[in-house]
């Protein structure tokens, strides 16, 4: 009997040691990948400076990538607000068990967006001029300010979620958690509104012009944020059947609500374009029937909307994890392509009246530097998230053991 107890203790000790080694290995790989991603993005930036420039499309893959990651980060925050503001915690409090992972997901995703937007500048290290010589009428200046505010609020939210487990004092401050969550949501909506106006206020680009982009971005953000979050949290919680079951149902529900609204809005945008100025319709014509039609119908609509919709129905009814995860993957792919079309296509065609109606016919392909920058940001995204899940106490009721915030 003593021998059996001894063997059990030995097995626990070995398992614990193995788990520690595994964690250290993952952390080391994550750190290496983070550094690799930063290096790759910086190399891409430098390469982009000496490569042949694509002058016809000043905002290319870098701005598409920035918008994409910004939407995922902010959309994830909107999804989190279901718990942090509206108090929905799932049938058995499952949401409470993943909310810290959700908040960290939003925060870690911002860095990929920042990396891209920083290196999209010709002089990235002069970005401080935006704050030093802030021009109040500039949407990009406001983007920098609001995005910083959003990031600061997210840092506060994540810190609060971690510190509240150890510091009883924080729990005693009434409504602090709610106040932080409301500020995060306000920042999120403000970022979206401004992002929409970055494009929508340009009279030079009729295909972007208008306030409709803000609503479009908010809906896209919810779709992408929910998809990204579910995918990343699933990887961490893949062995927890309760959470998997909850996530399948919850995220399928989110998709089932938002996808039809998005589809309806998209249809309205296209119908509006049909009745709009002669400088708007050519862009949508190319999207629907022209050069980009295959991408639009096959990837953005079929793969990015109808397949996830069908998978969500299945995932919701059967509580199927693989269906919800597949829906998330397709939503992320379709969402990326739709942002690519939205940003690049109007620049490729750039229909405008200059003495007569002129439509350019430029085919954009990103430079190697831009592709490397995007890959860098894409690698940074999961690496930073993985690193955070290993060093921060993100489990329910988990207390920090080192330096107040670390495991």
């Amino acid at each position, binding site marked *: 009997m003593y021998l059996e107890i001894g063997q059990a203790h030995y097995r626990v000790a070995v398992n614990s040691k193995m788990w520690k080694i595994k964690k250290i290995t993952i952390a080391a790989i994550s750190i290496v990948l983070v550094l690799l991603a930063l290096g790759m993005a910086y190399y891409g930036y430098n390469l982009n400076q000496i490569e042949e420039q694509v002058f016809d499309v000043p905002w290319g893959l870098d701005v598409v990538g920035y918008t994409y990651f910004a939407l995922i980060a902010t959309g994830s925050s909107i999804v989190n607000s279901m718990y942090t503001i509206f108090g929905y915690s799932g049938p058995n409090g499952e949401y409470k068990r993943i909310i810290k992972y959700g908040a960290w997901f939003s925060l870690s995703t911002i860095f990929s967006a920042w990396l891209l937007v920083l290196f999209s500048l010709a002089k990235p290290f*002069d970005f401080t001029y935006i704050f030093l010589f802030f021009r109040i009428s500039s949407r*990009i*200046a406001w983007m920098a300010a609001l995005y910083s505010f959003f990031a600061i609020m997210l840092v506060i939210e994540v810190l609060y979620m971690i510190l509240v487990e150890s510091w009883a004092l924080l729990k005693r401050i009434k409504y602090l958690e709610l106040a932080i969550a409301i500020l995060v949501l306000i920042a999120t909506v403000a970022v979206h509104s401004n992002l929409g106006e970055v494009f929508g206020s340009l009279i030079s680009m009729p295909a972007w012009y208008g306030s409709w982009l803000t609503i479009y971005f908010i809906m896209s953000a919810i779709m992408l944020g929910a998809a990204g979050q579910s995918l990343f949290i699933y990887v961490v919680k893949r062995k927890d059947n309760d959470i998997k079951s909850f996530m399948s149902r919850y995220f399928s529900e989110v998709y089932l609500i938002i996808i039809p609204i998005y589809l309806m809005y998209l249809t309205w945008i296209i119908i509006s374009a049909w009745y709009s100025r002669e400088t708007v319709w050519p862009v949508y014509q190319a999207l629907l029937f022209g050069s980009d039609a295959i991408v639009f119908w096959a990837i953005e609509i079929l793969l990015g909307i109808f397949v996830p919709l069908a998978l969500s129905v299945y995932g919701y009814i059967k509580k199927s994890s693989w269906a919800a995860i597949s829906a998330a993957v397709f939503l992320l792919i379709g969402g990326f392509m739709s942002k690519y079309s939205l940003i690049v296509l109007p620049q490729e065609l750039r229909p405008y009246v200059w003495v007569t109606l002129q439509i350019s016919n430029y085919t954009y392909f990103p430079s190697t530097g831009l592709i490397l920058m995007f890959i860098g940001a894409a690698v940074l995204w999961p690496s930073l998230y993985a690193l955070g899940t290993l060093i921060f106490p993100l489990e329910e009721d988990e207390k920090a053991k080192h330096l107040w915030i670390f495991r």
Partner: protein
Amino acid sequence: MKVSNQQNPYQGFGNTEKCKNWGMVIKVDQCFGCDACVAACTLENQTPFWEELWRTHVEDMEVGSYPESQRMFVPRLCMQCENPPCYYVCPTGATQIVEGGIVVVDEYKCIGCQYCVEACPFGARYMYTSEDIEKAKEYYGENTINVVPHVDKCTFCYTTAPDGTNTPACVRACVGGARVFGCLDNPNSEVSMLFNTDQAVQINPELGVGAKVRYVFGNRSSTLQSGGEQ
């Protein structure tokens, strides 16, 4: 013959406050597409011609359909708008409106986000990259006027013209006299007289930017003057 400042319609152009509104009128009929203005501007402002990027260029246009089609050469440049969209979108204040109502770019303040390039409804801006600066040294020598990467545009030769000539390089070089430049506030100047006639039209007036470069299409179709299709 030396022209005194009193008689010179371009007096005080450059870094002075003598005129609040400099402007230009382009007589399309008198442009025959020799591109002398483009060459002069390229040399004066060291623009990256190897990328086919210009502060001004001449568009060779064919409008209408046979047998009523017309060919015309339309010089293009920054419209020096009164309400320039590029000014309002610049996040760092690099785009400025200096005395004389001229829109310029402070290349040191410009961070190269290219928001102004997107915002300009006339496609008058482009990015002067670090690669272009290196290339410029090969073509124009070591003392290039463009030192750091920035967005570049026509400034009516604001920074280069006050060398005594007082006129933008394109105006000086124009063989047909198609470009008329001067102070819009002076009612006796040729540019002012042309500018204030019905003949001088703005491109896309519905944008409300208040362009200070106008076009006289002369015998061309009146529908073209409003920027519409023939």
